[in-house]
């Protein structure tokens, strides 16, 4: 029996096609992926991301515990700031990619992937250094409002206002009359916008308020094509416990100079010293077809890697993707092939993001 978010009825009312994703019945599309994708790039779209989980770390040693658990450096973060990070195992494999919201050194709020709700919580609790780790995944719904018109749309509904929030900063606010929301200038589309955490009882009121202001409801299909155009990694596809953040191209969230290191830091330092054997690279197909997750990457007729994500870019109208390739083949301009239904199709490594990001400007 799949779980439902507090917005399940809203999705059915909007004519969504539902699929099971990470144990939740989620909308994959309403009107159509391409239309929803365009709405976010050109105007504003809303996504139900209530399947994502929330965990808190609190207490005098909260910051210390988090620093031990995550690859990024939270001491570089001010209170009211959020930070993209990863949880790694001792081998340096990625347990999950997460966002940490720093209220204070003694109060951290962490957003995890739906697939990490139980796994991440258990891992954090086992390595808590005495800090209090709590599961809050069922206490929150989350709505992402993304697109060029999103910031103003959210701001007008917020008290206090939020338009002054810089990228990756957050604030508690009353939104559309719903108190106690957390409004963060973050997203997974490459567009400007906010992600709003709201208590389940208030989720529908918020959703409807955004709809009334003209936001287009968007499903997981558009969420995937939007994130891939800006080369945001998807946990479970582009990284997992068998791949390190360095291999996944997330070296920028791995801070070796952090005092005391972190779980996985030794393995990652070794890997960096020896040199990476494989890297996640962005590519376009030169030949015809669409590369999909799991398709083999070939060079000179042999299998050398694997496609982790692929789609037809709705903006570029070209087949794009991410693939693990041997380091020597991962440089921009390198040629390789993707095996599609038994036939090799020419591909070329290109610069990412495929589509320019608007978010952090």
């Amino acid at each position, binding site marked *: 029996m799949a779980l439902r978010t507090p917005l399940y009825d809203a999705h059915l009312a909007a004519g969504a*096609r539902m699929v099971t994703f990470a144990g939740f019945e989620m909308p*994959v599309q309403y009107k159509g992926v391409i239309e929803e994708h365009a709405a976010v790039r050109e105007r504003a779209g809303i996504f139900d991301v209530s399947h994502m989980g929330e965990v808190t770390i609190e207490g005098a040693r909260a910051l210390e515990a988090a620093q031990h658990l995550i690859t990024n450096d939270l001491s570089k973060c001010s209170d009211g700031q959020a930070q993209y990070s990863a949880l790694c195992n001792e081998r340096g494999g990625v347990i999950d990619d997460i966002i940490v919201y720093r209220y204070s050194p003694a109060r951290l709020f962490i957003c995890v992937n739906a697939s990490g709700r139980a796994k991440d919580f258990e891992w954090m609790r086992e390595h808590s250094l005495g800090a209090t780790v709590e599961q809050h995944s069922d206490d929150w719904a989350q709505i992402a409002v993304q697109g060029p018109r999103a910031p103003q749309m959210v701001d007008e509904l917020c008290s206090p206002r939020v338009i002054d929030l810089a990228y990756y900063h957050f604030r508690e606010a009353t939104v559309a009359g719903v108190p106690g929301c957390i409004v963060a200038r973050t997203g997974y589309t490459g567009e400007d916008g906010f992600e709003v955490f709201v208590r389940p009882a208030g989720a529908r009121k918020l959703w409807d308020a955004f709809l009334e202001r003209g936001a287009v409801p968007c499903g997981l*299909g558009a969420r995937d094509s939007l994130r891939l155009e800006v080369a945001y990694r998807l946990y479970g596809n582009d990284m997992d416990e068998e791949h390190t953040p360095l291999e996944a191209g997330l070296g920028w969230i791995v801070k070796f100079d952090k005092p005391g290191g972190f779980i996985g830091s030794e393995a990652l330092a070794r890997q960096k010293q020896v040199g990476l054997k494989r890297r996640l690279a962005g590519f376009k197909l030169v030949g015809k077809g669409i590369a999909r997750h799991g398709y083999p990457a070939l060079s000179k007729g042999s299998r050398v890697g694997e496609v982790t994500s692929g*789609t037809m870019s709705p903006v570029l109208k070209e087949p794009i993707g991410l693939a693990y390739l041997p380091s020597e083949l991962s440089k921009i301009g390198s040629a390789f092939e993707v095996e599609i239904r038994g036939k090799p199709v020419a591909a070329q490594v290109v610069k990412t993001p495929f589509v320019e990001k608007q978010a952090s400007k």
Partner: protein
Amino acid sequence: MAAYPDSLKYTKEHEWARVRGERATVGITAFAKDQLGDVVYLELPEVGAAVKKGQPFGVVESTKAVSELFAPVSGKVTKVNKELVDAPEGINDDPHERGWMIEIEMSSPAEASELLSATQYEELLASEH
């Protein structure tokens, strides 16, 4: 909703065939199109290729899914809708007309009589959903 014209024959795999003499024009049904979502890629055989009833003759891909196309009848491909290959969104807009894919010269025209009528196809959809 007269979504499924009586002038077409249908398969359980959601292809349609417009039979004229010994030739059949083939595409996918409105139902198949709705299930797939936005079609973004189409792969079809060359003119002259042999196709066999019930066997794959091409591939259609939406933003999310890959789906094989099954030949409703056996024979030789005599026409391919190249415009549709270049702009497969034609399937989204008009699956039963502009969305035609190939024309087959049937090797055993009797096969066409085994296909479903519009009424039978609509009954099939009703029973499945």
